[in-house]
Each structure stands twice: as structure tokens, then as C-alpha cells.
């Protein structure tokens, strides 16, 4: 299927946003962990939909509605193929966050004081707070995997922990959005399956960079966000192994998800329909389809190789800047550098870097427990994607040095 050789110059041209100046400097976008840029084909698909196709889905016999429904369901198939699962195992949500909430809510009735949920200290708030609420509401215990001081997981210890704890559910990130560290999921899932635990993987960061085969990974649930995968905002994907998915309690209710409605009660359709109520984000789904098409045109192995080389180059340059501490693991990383300069507040450096057109993020990155674990208030984060260049790295490092000089 992938036919094109990885050509960074060609790729740059596909992303119109990258081709602009900020404060008079060329934009150096190092915030792809927050949201990815979009290729022209994604933008065109959305425009095309609203210009000539616009109609609601699943409800009408007229041509526009049939076309919209057809295109919309095609993207579900495409998503399923991308992750090597079945179409009926794909539920559209408004984002990774909602997808986790849907699962958390759907499991609630089965949990009580006798159960335990395991998360990790690496999690994004989206994979922490919903489980806290489930824990408060059901009495299930919420515990955390052991984490090394440097923010890496000792996989062997974690496996033992899982097997001892026998949790009802293990909810864990595929890659840390703050550090970029990749979780070695396979042994953890094997351990969890040995003790019959459900496994939810937060793929918000992993889906684009690691393109997992979910059938092989053998998790029960997987969530990700379109906007971090070259697609539009307002759309998330929930994969659920069909039996497990279909046994989840319903979440939101209303039109579309129902079979029959009487004034006093209703009956529901099977998954995925029963989790999809209301008019969906149709343009979002179609745009996401275009994003998947774009990714399928490229060779994922080549993308990954390029990203890894770029990351190593950036890491090596950053390490050499006086006063910089890097918190990211420099191997097994999706391409994110988390760092600070001495004990300076990251806000100041991020603000100054913006003056040079360099977009990085500062703060706790929605991972306050990880910050506490690392003894930090916040960090800078530069996150790379395959559309970044070696020149981006050079300008980033040069600008960083200039900003540091401004500080004193």
C-alpha cells in the first residue's frame, strides 16, 4: 500500500500551516504533542463536504444524506483497518478524553470495594480523573504502578505488581505526553491477561507515532484523538474488543442509539450504535478519513525512522546546552523532549522562544501527579513530528541559547 518514499521537502509542502512566520520569524512548530498540523488533503475534504455534500447521516433517503452516510461509514472501516480491528469495534467520540469517560462510566456498575483499578503516574489527567471518580462512586481502589525516579517504568516490577494486585482494569498510556517515553505495553498486557484484567490503553500520543496493531497488542480498549493524528478537532476514536465493548453500559442517550422509544422506557441498538447518539461530527469524521489516507500513502517504517533520527539529533544538541536538564528518556521515545533550564520557570523561556517563532509548551502538561513524582512544578516541552526538519532543531537550539542569554 505505501508507495511514496519519505521526502521531507514534499511533506512540508503538504502542511500549509508550517509555511508561515510568527513575529517575523519562520514558525518552528514543536507542539505536535498538543495538536498536530493538518495536511492540505484533510482541509480540502472538510471544505468539499460543506461545499457540496453537507447532509445529516443515517436518517435520510435523499441522495445527499445517503452520500454522507456512505462516506462517514467508510471512514469507520478505514479506521478499523488502520488498527487491524473490526469496523463494529470502532466508536466515534468527541476526543480521547470522552472515550475514556465512556469506558469508565460503562464499567461502573460492575465495580465495588473488592476491585482495584491500576493506572500509572505517567498518565495524562484524562486517564486519571475519570478513574478517581469511578473509585469514589464504586469504592473500587485506585492504585498506581511503581515508577522509577527518572520517570521510566520498571516493567518487570510492574508485571509483578499487576499479577499480585489482580486489578479489574489496567489503564495505561502508550506514551507519556510530557516525557515522550514509550510504555513497553506487551509484557504488561500479558501480565494483566494472566490475571483476567481488562486493559485500556491511552493512545492519544501513541497512535500517530507508533501505529499499533490492536489485534496483536491484545488490549480490550484503546482511545485516541483525531486532532493529534493529522485530523480535525472534535473527534476521538474508541476501540473496544467487541464483546467487551458491547457489554459496557450505555453512556449518553438520545436519538440514533435507540431501537424503540416509548414514553417510559426504551430499547437500545448493539454497539457501536448504542454509544453514538445525536448528530455526529460528520466533517470531523470525513477529515479524519483523509488523514488516514495521507498516513497510508506514507511508509510508516520510514516515518518512524525519520522521527527517531530527528529526535536523537535534537536530544544531542539540547543536552549540550549549559544548564539544561532533560527529563525525557532518550531511548524509546516518540519524539518529545521535556526539559528545564536551571531552576527558571518554564513560562519565561516559552514566552521568549515564541518571540523567535519557536512554539514549545510550558507547564504541567496535564500531568500534575507526574510533576509531583519528578519533584517539578512544570517543564518546557518540545515535541517533534515527521514534518519537522533538522533546520527546525537548529533554530530551536539557537533561539533557546539566545533566550537563556536574555534571562540574566
Amino acid at each position: 500500500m505505501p508507495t511514496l518514499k519519505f521526502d521531507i521537502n514534499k511533506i512540508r509542502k503538504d502542511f500549509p500551516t508550517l509555511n508561515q512566520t510568527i513575529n517575523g520569524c519562520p514558525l518552528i512548530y514543536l507542539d505536535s504533542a498538543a495538536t498536530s498540523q493538518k495536511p492540505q488533503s484533510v482541509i480540502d475534504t472538510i471544505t468539499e463536504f460543506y461545499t457540496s455534500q453537507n447532509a445529516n447521516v443515517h436518517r435520510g433517503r435523499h441522495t445527499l444524506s445517503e452520500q454522507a452516510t456512505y462516506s462517514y461509514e467508510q471512514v469507520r472501516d478505514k479506521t478499523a483497518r488502520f488498527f487491524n480491528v473490526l469496523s463494529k469495534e470502532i466508536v466515534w467520540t468527541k476526543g480521547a478524553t470522552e472515550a475514556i469517560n465512556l469506558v469508565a462510566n460503562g464499567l461502573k456498575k460492575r465495580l465495588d470495594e473488592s476491585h482495584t483499578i491500576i493506572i500509572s503516574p505517567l498518565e495524562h489527567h484524562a486517564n486519571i480523573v475519570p478513574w478517581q471518580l469511578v473509585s469514589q462512586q464504586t469504592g473500587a481502589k485506585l492504585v498506581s504502578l511503581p515508577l522509577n525516579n527518572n520517570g521510566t517504568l520498571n516493567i518487570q516490577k510492574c508485571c509483578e505488581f499487576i499479577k499480585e494486585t489482580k486489578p479489574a482494569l489496567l489503564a495505561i498510556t502508550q506514551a507519556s505526553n510530557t516525557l515522550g517515553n514509550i510504555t513497553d505495553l506487551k509484557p504488561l498486557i500479558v501480565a494483566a491477561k494472566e490475571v483476567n484484567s481488562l486493559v485500556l490503553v491511552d493512545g492519544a500520543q501513541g497512535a500517530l507515532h507508533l501505529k499499533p496493531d490492536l489485534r496483536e497488542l491484545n488490549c480490550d480498549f484503546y482511545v485516541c484523538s483525531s486532532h493529534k493524528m493529522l485530523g480535525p478537532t472534535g473527534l476521538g476514536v474508541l476501540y473496544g474488543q467487541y464483546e467487551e465493548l458491547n457489554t459496557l453500559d450505555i453512556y449518553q442517550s438520545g436519538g440514533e442509539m435507540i431501537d424503540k422509544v416509548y414514553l417510559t422506557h426504551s430499547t437500545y441498538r448493539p454497539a457501536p450504535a448504542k454509544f453514538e447518539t445525536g448528530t455526529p461530527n460528520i466533517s470531523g469524521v470525513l477529515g479524519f478519513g483523509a488523514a488516514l489516507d495521507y498516513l497510508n500513502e506514507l511508509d510508516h517504517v520510514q516515518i518512524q525512522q525519520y522521527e527517531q533520527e530527528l529526535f536523537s539529533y535534537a536530544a544531542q544538541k539540547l543536552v549540550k546546552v549549559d544548564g539544561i536538564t532533560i527529563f525525557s528518556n532518550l531511548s524509546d521515545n516518540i519524539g518529545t523532549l521535556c526539559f528545564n533550564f536551571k531552576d527558571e520557570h518554564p513560562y519565561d523561556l516559552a514566552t521568549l522562544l515564541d518571540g523567535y517563532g519557536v512554539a514549545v509548551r510550558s507547564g504541567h502538561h496535564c500531568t500534575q501527579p507526574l510533576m509531583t513524582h519528578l519533584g517539578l512544578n512544570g517543564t518546557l516541552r518540545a515535541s517533534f513530528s515527521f514534518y519537522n526538519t533538522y533546520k527546525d532543531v537548529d533554530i530551536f537550539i539557537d533561539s533557546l541559547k539566545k533566550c537563556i542569554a536574555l534571562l540574566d
Partner: protein
Amino acid sequence: MTNTFNKVTESIKNAPAWQQKYREIMLLGKTLPALADVLKTDDALVSGCESKVWMFVEFDLTENTLVVIGDSDTRIVKGLLAIILTLYNGLTPEQVVNKNAYEEFEKLGLISHLSASRGNGIKAMVEKIQTMAQHKLS
């Protein structure tokens, strides 16, 4: 069998305008005997159709061939159902599995009816027959 099908559907294929195609389909629907009301149970409903379609798919054990009967509350879908019945009735499970209804509908110029829309019953009807045949084979 294919002869029956061709005969039944010839007027559809040859209809010069969509209006006539639909007329022929609806006429075809009228030739399909109505199911007795007692048979129109919720269990027999093909789910995924906007209009109601009741369908019974069985196998003639002595002949090892498919027997399908059905009905619909709309004229057009009933006509389409009639086409499907003519297409599949009397086939062996192997023949059913190898018969691509979509191709036949395409030949009739009716492919717009075969989109993935959930409101469209053809996909669901064909799937019900195919599942049955596959089940029989395995």
C-alpha cells in the same frame, strides 16, 4: 435460475428512465405474496432497514437449497426484496456464497440503493442470507 432472474428483471434493466425503473420495481413487489400478519414478528425483522422488512431464510433439507420468503411495508423495498428472493431462492449454500448481489444490482442500474446507509435494507437483507449460507457451510 439465472434465467428466471433475467426474465423478471429485464424490464428493470431496460427501463429508459429512473421513473420506470421504480415503477417496474414496485410492480415486481406487488407480485410478491404478502406474509401472513402472524409471521410479521419482531424476530423476523431485518434490522438496519428504515422500512420494515420481515424475512425467513431456511434450507430445504432434501434439496439442500435456499428457501427465502419475506415482505416489506414499503413498495420499493418490497420490490427490491422480490429481486433478492429471485436471485437467491433455490440456490445451494455454495452458490449463495458465490453469488454477488451487488454486481447484479449494478447491472440493473440500481447500485445507488446499495450504499452503506443504515437506512438501506438491501445490505442487511443480503447479509442475512449470506450469513445463513455460510453457517450452513461450516
